[in-house]
């Protein structure tokens, strides 16, 4: 009795009905277990395929689900507050506080009271004339006046996120914190250095004198009851915040800090209730600083955060009509957008996932084919189709249950490992443990992916089993006339072509949406993601067509095979020519993998190259200097230009104004210097070159450069007149002539669109001549300088020198806006380049696994053939070389076609993938191929495939010729 007999033939005994059912069940289970045990290798391949496919899907799901929570929490934690509330009915503030603090979404509410503080006032009488401050009564021993921010001690723990503090960032009773500028002023007043730990006497004003009605004397400050002697300076701070609530409340132009620049923080608790009442009564409106609970804010997902915040604002305003709520909606929305973009970029894994599922399908097909004798034997023994299918179904249930459990485990582990390593390449235990702390498993995703993968696997397996079960009947049925067969082929080709055309149409249509813009939002993101999915389908179709072409071509390449393989070419060519299905599948799959791999590598290198170019463009020139305080541009151009190594320098005056109904940033610059110093690209202006545009701007004071978006929105044309109004601190309106349309500028970023990387205050900026600022607007200050370095100058030395000479200036900051939300996201969802790299590695692994499975299968099919060759005097070494040669032919031919096809597909993909890769097309994204990485990927695929094939061949060839020959019978 052979092994199959032992498996399937049972003994017949007299049994009751129930016993029969039970014993039948047990028998089937035993049979299934025995089948699995006897086919360890096949089952292992299937299990690996299933676990791999499911793990990739589960990892992606768990990773993104978990990431969004951590990202949201992290980001919210970095924000000082999310909202401030004020009201003109100051006596209602306590009620507003009481309501707000009890709201379920609110974690903390802190009081904020603005006033001014005085130093060096002790020896001055009530009639001391203080105004104007730089010309007060005793300028040899003046009073120092500064903004005072009265906040609770615990509020400083949140506010300090905006500050760079020397000393301690604490505000206990008896302590004050002082700005760097104020400390420098006191050093002049007291004629000594001011450091953290020093004691000072400070007076907190209970009212602000109204100089318009002549309140020029000390007594109008009402400080008699609020003098605090021997207060310790706990810390000296510089403002470093960006888009935060404090910045909105107290900030000035850009990121200069406004009222924080020259100020102190004072503990509110040190004031009596009466003091606070008086301050309120004098019209210094208190505010409530609101910190929300991260978990509550992100309930419903990151996308819900802006809505949840708006809802809080509405709840307050509906109850207190007089309340005004400012919410940090733009920043929270940016975070939601950026997260959506990063999350969507994980769709770039789709080709890898689809390939993995495909791998499982092919492996399952091979396994069933290997078992066709077994199916035949079962039929011979009288098994009906249902029984045979039941056996395979039982095996499927066991294998898939095991794979599912293993995949969930692997998914959880991988989801934690990717960000743990992905951030900087080194394992971070903190990130790893945080992932487990926040772990989110979506039962919906698990269910969908399991049904998808296991359903495909089961469907394909059963279809194959059924086709073998019904083979003879099927074969008798397929005797059709030639006309019918041709009709069948025609229908298939037609359906194929129509589907392909449909997918191509989708790709073209979505690409059109994306190409129309350079600043990408939700619409373009969705179009990009859809285009990607349609494009993957197109790649599958094209790979199938092209692989068929390759197979036909290989059949005709006898001379080439003769030339390469010499003596071995006869059998190699014959094997290639016979084109078994497994060889056809191998060509198709390898082509697909290589094409996708090339696409991934090309898109990755293009993105990275674009990032480098974009960073350089955003920086603007060799040297970018950002000042924390507005400085006189002309004066500092001279000072900075005198530093050794600095060649040419240009500064930008800046102010806020209104164009139409929109607030814009207005920059003033010397156009010709900017042309010379800035790293311009041909794409910077719309419809003209930087040379023409900037020369034209320089020609007339009435010229203005607008973003092409403003021009199109307001239906302007170049040469047309327009007005800019409400220059903050300047004239009400000025007339200009539109001289050119700009998309972006070096150092300034995109002209239209929220550009969080640049931390620009407004949605748009416009460019004027420097002379207009100096002569018509009357603004001399700005915060930005661009400069070129002298040839051979060391940029690091220049940076150190400038930062030492001007402590409130930053040179070539690594990140222009370090608070850019993207930097938080990439901590947990690695940068797109890493996603693409991981995708490429997965594709590589799939490629190698497939080559190995195929080789094993092909060898299994050919074992007896090789036994005959060996019996005829063939040499094992020769057979090995033949096999390796055969695999190499397919590898090389698919490489030769797949790489150009991949490059071509990258070119197409880049037209619609931009929204997934970058938030804005600041510089024109042009194709860049990292041939080094591509070579590494391709060579590792080939080497791993060939090296993996050799042991399989060796193992497969370790058989007894006689036994194999007997098996043929």
């Amino acid at each position, binding site marked *: 009795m052979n092994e199959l007999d032992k498996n399937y033939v049972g003994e017949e005994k007299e049994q009751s009905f129930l016993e029969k059912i039970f014993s039948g069940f047990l028998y089937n289970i035993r049979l299934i277990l025995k089948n699995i045990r006897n086919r360890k290798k096949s089952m292992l391949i299937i299990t690996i395929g299933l676990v791999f496919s499911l793990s990739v899907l589960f990892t992606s799901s768990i990773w993104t689900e978990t990431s969004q929570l951590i990202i949201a929490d992290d980001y919210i934690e970095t924000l000082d507050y999310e909202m401030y509330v004020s009201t003109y009915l100051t006596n209602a503030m306590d009620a507003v506080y009481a309501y707000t603090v009890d709201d379920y979404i609110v974690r903390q509410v802190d009081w904020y009271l603005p006033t001014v503080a005085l130093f060096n006032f002790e020896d001055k009488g009530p009639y001391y004339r203080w105004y104007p401050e730089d010309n007060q009564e005793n300028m040899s021993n003046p009073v120092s006046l500064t903004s005072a921010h009265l906040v609770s001690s615990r509020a400083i723990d949140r506010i300090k996120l905006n500050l760079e503090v020397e000393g301690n960032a604490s505000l206990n009773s008896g302590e004050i914190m002082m700005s760097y500028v104020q400390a420098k002023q006191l050093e002049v007043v007291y004629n000594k250095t001011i450091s953290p730990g020093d004691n000072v006497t400070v007076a907190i004003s209970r009212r602000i004198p109204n100089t318009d009605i002549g309140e020029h004397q000390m007594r109008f400050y009402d400080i008699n009851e609020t003098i605090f002697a021997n207060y310790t300076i706990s810390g000296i701070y510089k403002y470093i915040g960006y888009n935060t609530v404090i910045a909105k409340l107290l900030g000035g132009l850009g990121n200069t800090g406004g009222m924080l620049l020259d100020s102190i923080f004072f503990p509110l608790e040190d004031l009596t209730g009466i003091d606070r009442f008086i301050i309120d009564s004098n019209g210094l409106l208190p505010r409530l600083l609101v910190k929300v609970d991260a978990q509550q804010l992100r309930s419903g997902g990151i996308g819900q955060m802006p809505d949840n915040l708006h809802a809080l604002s509405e709840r307050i305003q509906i109850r207190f009509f007089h309340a005004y709520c400012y919410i940090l909606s733009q920043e929270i929305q940016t975070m939601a957008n950026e997260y959506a973009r990063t999350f969507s970029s994980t769709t770039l894994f789709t080709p890898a996932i689809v390939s993995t599922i495909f791998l499982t399908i092919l492996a399952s097909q091979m396994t069933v084919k290997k078992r066709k004798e077994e199916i035949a034997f079962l039929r011979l023994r009288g098994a009906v189709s249902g029984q045979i299918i039941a056996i395979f179904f039982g095996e499927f249930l066991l294998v898939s249950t095991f794979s599912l459990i293993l995949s969930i485990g692997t998914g959880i582990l991988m989801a934690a490992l990717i960000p743990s390593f992905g951030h900087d390449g080194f394992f971070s235990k903190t990130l790893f443990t945080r992932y487990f702390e926040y772990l989110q498993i979506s039962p919906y995703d698990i269910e969908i992916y399991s049904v998808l993968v296991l359903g495909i696997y089961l469907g394909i397996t059963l279809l194959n089993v059924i086709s073998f079960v019904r083979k003879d009947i099927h074969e008798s049925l397929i005797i059709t006339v030639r006309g019918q067969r041709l009709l069948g082929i025609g229908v298939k080709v037609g359906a194929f072509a129509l589907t392909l055309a449909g997918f191509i149409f989708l790709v073209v249509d979505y690409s059109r949406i994306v190409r129309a813009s350079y600043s990408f939002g939700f619409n373009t993101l969705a179009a990009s993601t859809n285009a990607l999915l349609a494009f993957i389908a197109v790649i599958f179709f094209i790979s199938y067509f092209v692989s068929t072409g390759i197979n036909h071509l290989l059949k005709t390449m006898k001379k080439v095979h003769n030339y390469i393989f010499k003596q071995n070419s006869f059998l190699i060519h014959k094997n290639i020519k*016979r084109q078994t299905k497994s060889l056809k599948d191998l060509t198709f799959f390898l082509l697909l993998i290589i094409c996708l791999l090339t696409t991934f590598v090309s898109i990755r290198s293009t993105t990275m190259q674009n990032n480098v170019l974009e960073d350089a463009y955003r920086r603007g020139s060799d040297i970018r200097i950002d000042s924390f305080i507005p400085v006189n541009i002309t004066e500092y151009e001279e000072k900075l230009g005198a530093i050794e190594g600095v060649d040419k320098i240009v500064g930008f005056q800046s102010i806020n104004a209104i164009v139409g109904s929109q607030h814009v940033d207005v920059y003033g610059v010397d156009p010709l210097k900017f042309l010379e110093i800035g790293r311009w690209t041909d794409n910077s202006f719309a419809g003209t070159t930087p040379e023409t545009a900037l020369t034209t701007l320089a020609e007339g004071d009435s010229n203005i450069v607008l973003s092409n978006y403003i021009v199109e929105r307001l239906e302007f044309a170049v040469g047309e007149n327009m007005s800019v109004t409400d220059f903050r601190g300047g004239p009400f309106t000025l007339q200009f002539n539109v001289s050119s349309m700009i998309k972006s500028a070096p150092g300034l970023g995109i002209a239209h669109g929220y550009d969080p990387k640049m931390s620009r205050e407004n949605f748009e900026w416009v460019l004027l001549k420097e002379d207009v600022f100096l002569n018509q607007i009357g603004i001399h200050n700005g915060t930005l300088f661009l400069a070129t370095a002298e040839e051979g100058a060391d940029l690091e030395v220049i940076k150190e020198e400038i930062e030492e000479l001007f402590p409130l200036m930053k040179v070539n900051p690594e990140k222009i806006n370090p608070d850019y939300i993207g930097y938080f996201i990439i901590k947990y969802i690695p940068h797109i380049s890493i996603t693409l790299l991981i995708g490429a590695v997965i594709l590589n692994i799939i490629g190698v696994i497939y080559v190995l499975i195929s080789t094993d299968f092909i060898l299994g099919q050919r074992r007896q053939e090789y036994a005959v060759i*060996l*019996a*005829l005097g063939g040499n094992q070494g020769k057979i090995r070389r033949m096999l390796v040669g055969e695999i190499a032919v397919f590898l090389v031919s698919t490489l030769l076609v797949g790489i150009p096809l991949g490059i071509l597909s990258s070119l197409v993909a880049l037209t619609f993938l931009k929204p997934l890769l970058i938030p804005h097309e600041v510089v024109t994204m042009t194709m860049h191929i990292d041939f080094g990485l591509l070579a590494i990927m391709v060579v590792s695929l080939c080497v791993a495939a060939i090296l993996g094939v050799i042991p399989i061949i060796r193992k497969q060839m370790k058989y007894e010729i006689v036994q194999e020959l007997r098996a043929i019978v």
Partner: protein
Amino acid sequence: MAISQIEVSNLIKTYSSRAEELTVLRSISFKIARGEVVCFLGTSGSGKTTTLNLLAGIDKPTAGKIYYGGKDIHEWSTDQLFEYRLKEIGFIFQEFYLLEHLSALENVMVPIILDGESEEVAQDLALELLNQVGLGGRALNLPQELSSGEKQRVCVARAIVNNPSVLIADEPTGTLDSKTGGEIMSLLLRLAKKNKMAMIYTTHDPYFTKLASKIIVLQKGKIIEHSPDDFEDIGYDKSRFEFLFKGEKDE
């Protein structure tokens, strides 16, 4: 006395499996001279095919020696054994074992190609041999397009294409009708004689023992020697094989 080309001494072959050990050959010894025609006769399981496989070097003995030209072939290296199978042995299988994706011509070409000859040389030689076995007109047909007799003729051509010293045929008529079987045997003998090869074959059919100069009868893995005359009385209808003897007379 003829010089022995093959000398088998105390050959034992045992197949082991998890369940049992099966001894197929129990210390058999015999000699085969150059040009001799030897027939192994015996019932199924007597050890005929195992003996041929061992002689051809495609199976390994459990014990005992097989000397070819005075050297024990199972002490040879793998490469020497390949060389032995390729150049000294021509094997004809009962089940043909033709490579299904190759034409009749290409199947015959395989041993020549394995021997390192060019494709052109192999093609000429193979075609010549196919003509000799009467299959010149079917050279480009695939095995599945040939009848069993034609397949066996291809196998004969494939076996002798490298001009081996020993032709081994394992029940070459086993799957053929008696007429075709007779034709094949006649062809084999003619070619063996023409090329001065020793010929070793097995058969169930005592009638074909007539063609052998030596008959070795195997029974349960042991040799019982007989002469061809011992099979005179078995009762085969000689007339059915008249053509065979005619051929012999012609020779």
